[in-house]
């Protein structure tokens, strides 16, 4: 409509319009090319993963050579081959323990995500709530979990699983709270004014503006929190284990070290590490998926 009208009003404007269209198409073509390039690069071997894999292989070879040449006893430092064979041998006894740890981690993580998100939303509803409660969230975070884990395990002595989940939750929930609070408060000022102008309710502003704005921050918190939930679970299992309570993979690590089954200890450690890496990779993939369309962090650029 505008272009028709303006063409009548001032004929000299139509070439400008064409220019604007072609400019626009160029922009679009460029992004398509970008997407194509992106999907290609994920299949082709790239320096992104060749370099770290090489470093890993070299380190394992050095470790192996070091153990062979020095002739160090396996109960002090086992070679990578021995760790791997032990892992295969002991897998039937280690894997169920790993699953217990995974359960604790997942339960604590889910609790941390839900409670963290809800607390963050509560914080942003009123400055007073945030001022009153935020220091206590910090205190909970800075108290060493090793110091309070025995207490929690004693309080919840009838339910070791729950006690361990609580410990892991305490470690994991803070990054979610602080990141999401920051995200909810960093919604664009002009957009906030716009919502106000169109008479948006508090609920609408939260749903359509604050929560989407907070998503990248929330996902950043998720990545940290996933790893922390595992660390919290492992630490709590250690504390519980010294008190004689059987639980997940950390209990196996503890027992193996007591019995000087060092290769078995390494094997259990390897499993724990793999689980941690798995959680991190999962969160990163989730984050990239959710942000791929719009957030700077998930967009690959050439320059």
């Amino acid at each position, binding site marked *: *409509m*505008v*272009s028709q*009208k*303006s063409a009548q*009003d*001032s004929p*000299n*404007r139509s070439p*400008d*319009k064409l220019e*604007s*269209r072609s*400019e*626009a198409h160029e*922009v*679009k073509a460029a*992004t398509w090319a970008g997407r194509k390039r992106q999907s290609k690069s994920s299949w082709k071997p790239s320096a992104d993963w060749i370099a770290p894999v090489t470093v890993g292989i070299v380190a394992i070879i050095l470790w192996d050579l070091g153990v062979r040449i020095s002739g160090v006893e396996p109960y002090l430092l086992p070679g990578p081959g021995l760790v791997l064979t032990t892992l295969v041998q002991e897998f039937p006894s280690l894997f169920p323990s790993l699953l217990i740890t995974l359960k604790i981690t997942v339960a604590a993580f889910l609790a941390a995500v839900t409670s963290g998100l809800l607390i963050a939303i509560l914080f942003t509803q009123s400055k007073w709530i945030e001022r009153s409660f935020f220091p206590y969230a910090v205190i909970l975070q800075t108290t060493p979990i090793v110091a309070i884990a025995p207490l929690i395990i004693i309080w919840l002595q009838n339910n070791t699983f729950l006690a361990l989940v609580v410990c892991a939750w305490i470690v994991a929930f803070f990054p979610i709270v602080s990141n999401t609070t920051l995200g909810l408060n960093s919604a*664009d000022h*002009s*957009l906030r*004014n*716009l*919502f*106000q*102008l*169109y*008479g*948006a309710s508090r609920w*609408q502003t939260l749903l*359509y*503006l604050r929560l*989407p704005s907070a*998503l990248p921050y929330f996902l950043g918190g998720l990545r940290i929190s996933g790893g922390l939930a595992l660390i919290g679970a492992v630490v709590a299992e250690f504390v519980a284990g010294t008190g004689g309570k059987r639980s997940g993979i950390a209990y196996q690590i503890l027992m193996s070290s007591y019995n000087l089954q060092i290769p078995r200890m390494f094997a259990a450690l390897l499993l724990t590490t793999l689980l941690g890496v798995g959680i991190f990779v999962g969160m990163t993939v989730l984050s990239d998926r959710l942000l791929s*369309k*719009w*957030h*700077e962090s998930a*967009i690959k650029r050439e320059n």
Partner: protein
Amino acid sequence: MSCPLLSLQNVSKVYANGTVALEGVNLTLHPGEFVSLVGPSGCGKSTVLRLVAGLGEVSRGSLDWHNREQERQLAFVFQDAALMPWASVLDNVHLPLKLKGKRLRPSRANLQEAINLVDLQGFEQSYPRELSGGMKMRVSIARALVTKPTFMLMDEPFGALDEMTRGRLNDDVLNLWAQKHWTVLFVTHNIYEAVYLSTRVVVMAARPGRIVDDIPINQPHPRTDEFRTSSDFNHYCREVLTALSHSETGSPA
């Protein structure tokens, strides 16, 4: 002239930290006018716009609408396009209706009309980051269009754009203004833009923010590049420039 749409009488605005943003501002707007506010940064031109929009309270004086109905028919275009980066062009344009509880599907025709008006057909599913600065501004204007406003408040909408794009969007806004019978209150620091667009240019000065001159641009619309290069145009620009420089030296124009 017809009865005024809106009048500001002796309006002052003092912020909580004690900054006097505006002092004794008198301004009357009539329906169908295209009024530009020009002035140095810090002269409170954006503050006037925000007060009119209801994004803040008047400290002293009064801001009166002739008809309360008209107050609800206003739309605001921000300096930065203020688009939601996580939403497609279509969803961004849908926002004002969504906030009024109208779903996407039934309002689709209305949204498409707005998108066509700013010449963005084919980009409905694009995300803001895929668009150029000028196109983002067009999306922002389309979003303002969907509520069928009669009064447009524009806060330096084209300040960050290159000269070519700015010129193009100026013409588009003028066309929409004529076509939709809008009243426009337009903030800019570009004198040439103000003279080219407006039926009236209001010159403001800083510390404290106040109006120092009100210059009618008695030239017919639609305006073309001929006007941009005419001696009349130069004359008006000169007049605005003089008012601005007088305000800086402190003597009233």
